């Protein structure tokens, strides 16, 4: 058996496998719901309403997609240059930390100045965190999968220290939690009373920006060249090390923005559970998007919708809420398989 590329797949060929993947995901969920004593057939409707059924649900989905767009872009940028950044989680926290440090009164500026400044600072912080592993890779050849992964643990412990020490909210009753951002440091909400904030718009803008960088600029060209064939790139005079470092800065910066958007947009303060693994889910998002920056937006929305919808469904159907994660995982695995099968056919050989 081998896979053979299909020269020009028809639209049915392109759409069928993903549709089947989605269907299979639902079937798995229905089966599991049945086992747990739920009503299998009702879950489809429940997921849909959970994710899109009301303005509230829809905005919640967008909300959850926001940090995923940032981390997804961070991963997509890095992976395209074959910089295996598994540390977006830590970089996200770095962005969040700096937002809190500067946004709780240290800088007293009006919002139109403060907000961009904080975003920039968050990018710098996230970038700085990835610079270390990137330098270790380029200078000493240390595998960045491992260093970025370990940095996640180290940096989270550091955040924990900050939240119990210098960054602890004096009004927080001793709970490890930062003070709240000053009102000027908060990203405004898109709709009053609901949680969606302008971080979402920023995420969309970032996606377009990365797309433009990838396709229109020399940096984008360099990053792709280095990722595809570093040896050829070096021979052709592309400064490979510098490109890797630039990629690291961009990737880390995007992950840092995720932290900024979550703190300044959603939470208003930093806790140790700011991110339920957005950095890791970003990998899922980026890969679903085939590392395409605009694809990242759709992949993030897809992942968010599955999660929010299934989470809500699990409550309504009275089945354990872990079903949401199961659906997310199955959707991911089946979907990447489906994307493959919409471009290749299996052939006996």
């Amino acid at each position: 058996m081998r896979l053979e590329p299909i020269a020009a797949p028809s639209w049915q060929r392109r759409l069928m496998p993903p549709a089947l993947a989605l269907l299979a995901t639902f079937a798995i969920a229905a089966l599991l719901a049945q086992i747990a004593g739920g009503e299998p057939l009702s879950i489809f409707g429940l997921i849909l309403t959970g994710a899109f059924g009301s303005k509230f649900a829809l905005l919640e989905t967008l909300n959850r997609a926001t940090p995923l767009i940032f981390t997804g872009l961070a991963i997509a940028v890095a992976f395209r240059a074959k910089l295996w950044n598994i540390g977006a989680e830590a970089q996200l926290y770095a962005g969040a930390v700096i937002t809190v440090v500067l946004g709780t009164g240290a800088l007293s500026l009006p919002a139109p100045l403060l907000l961009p400044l904080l975003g920039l600072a968050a990018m710098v912080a996230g970038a700085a965190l990835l610079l270390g592993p990137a330098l270790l890779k380029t200078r000493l050849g240390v595998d960045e999968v491992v260093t970025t992964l370990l940095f996640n643990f180290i940096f989270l412990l550091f955040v924990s220290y900050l939240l119990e020490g210098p960054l602890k909210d004096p009004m927080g009753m001793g709970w490890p939690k930062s003070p709240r951002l000053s009102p000027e440091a908060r990203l405004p909400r898109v709709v009053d009373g609901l949680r969606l904030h302008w971080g979402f718009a920023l995420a969309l803008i970032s996606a377009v920006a990365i797309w433009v960088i990838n396709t229109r600029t020399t940096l984008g060209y360099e990053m792709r060249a280095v990722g595809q064939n570093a040896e050829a790139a070096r021979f052709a005079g592309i400064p490979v090390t510098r490109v890797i470092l630039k990629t690291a800065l961009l990737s880390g910066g995007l992950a840092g923005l995720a932290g900024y958007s979550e703190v300044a947009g959603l939470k208003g303060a930093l806790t140790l559970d700011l991110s339920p693994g957005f950095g890791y889910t970003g990998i899922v998002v980026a890969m679903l998007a085939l590392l395409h920056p605009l694809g990242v937006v759709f992949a993030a929305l897809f992942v968010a919708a599955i999660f929010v919808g299934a989470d809500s469904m699990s409550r309504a159907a009275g089945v354990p809420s872990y079903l949401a994660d199961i659906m997310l995982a199955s959707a991911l695995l089946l979907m990447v398989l489906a994307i493959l099968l919409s471009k290749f056919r299996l052939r006996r050989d």
Partner: protein
Amino acid sequence: AEPIKVAGIYTVPVEQQWVSRIHVAALAAKDRGDITYTFSENTSNTDYPRVMREYAEQGHKLIIGEIFGVEAEAREVAADYPDVAFLMGSSFKEDPALPNLAVFDNYIQDASYLSGIVAGAMSESGNIGMVGGFPIPEVNRLMHAFMAGAREMNPDITFQVSFIGSWFDPPKAKETAFAMIENGADMLYAERFGVSDAAKEKGVLAIGNVIDTQGDYPSTVAASALWHFEPTLDATIAKVRDGSFTAADYGVYSFMKEGGASLAPFGTFEGKIPQKALDLIASRTAAIKDGSYEVEINDAEPASS
């Protein structure tokens, strides 16, 4: 009467000691027919406000949970659903401007203090090991009360304090406890799962916290400080039912005098605890209940001594 629709939202699985007390109380109320009960566990703080809204939208009348990490946002949700009663574990006080959100916490320092007396009396080496998850107020205050109790029996006692940086890593907690035993501890304060197992394996004693674990470790756990959520929940249910639910600090329902905390029966250790300790426990229990003695509430991070 019609059962009240109640939902619980927990950031950890319902096995976690703290949450399990809420969960058990809710299940009991459900079995009595007072409430219907559904819950979400392991809900991350990011999702917490959304889940609150969902339950509120679904028509639940009372939502219980813990908002230590999402104080501000949870209050916003409560403000948006004035007809729903929220009873939330919180380090903050109630806010009169938000009449439908009441707070509680496991103020079982009374019981911890009493269990400390047992520990102080029974530790021969005068060296007690304490393994905690994170140094948060809920943990710190109980540790301090426990230490105060132990010092009543032996002012020279020393404490080893460690935090494992996780709520759920029994093997790690066990390793930490092992290290403390090696270092001379013959009595452990089992704030986390795993500690009593180390004590059992090495033949030293342990004191339980929040739940009674003597059943699992009959010759190891000498005493346990228990938290009972029932008084808190039952009071809430009554007030929701008669419409008098309002912003308040339900933390007091965890006090011993309200029946929210107690020292577990000595069980297998009946008769093994020195009379001097029993006497002090008896007198202090009475004093606590009649209000003449108050255990100090100290939320600062405890340190080894």
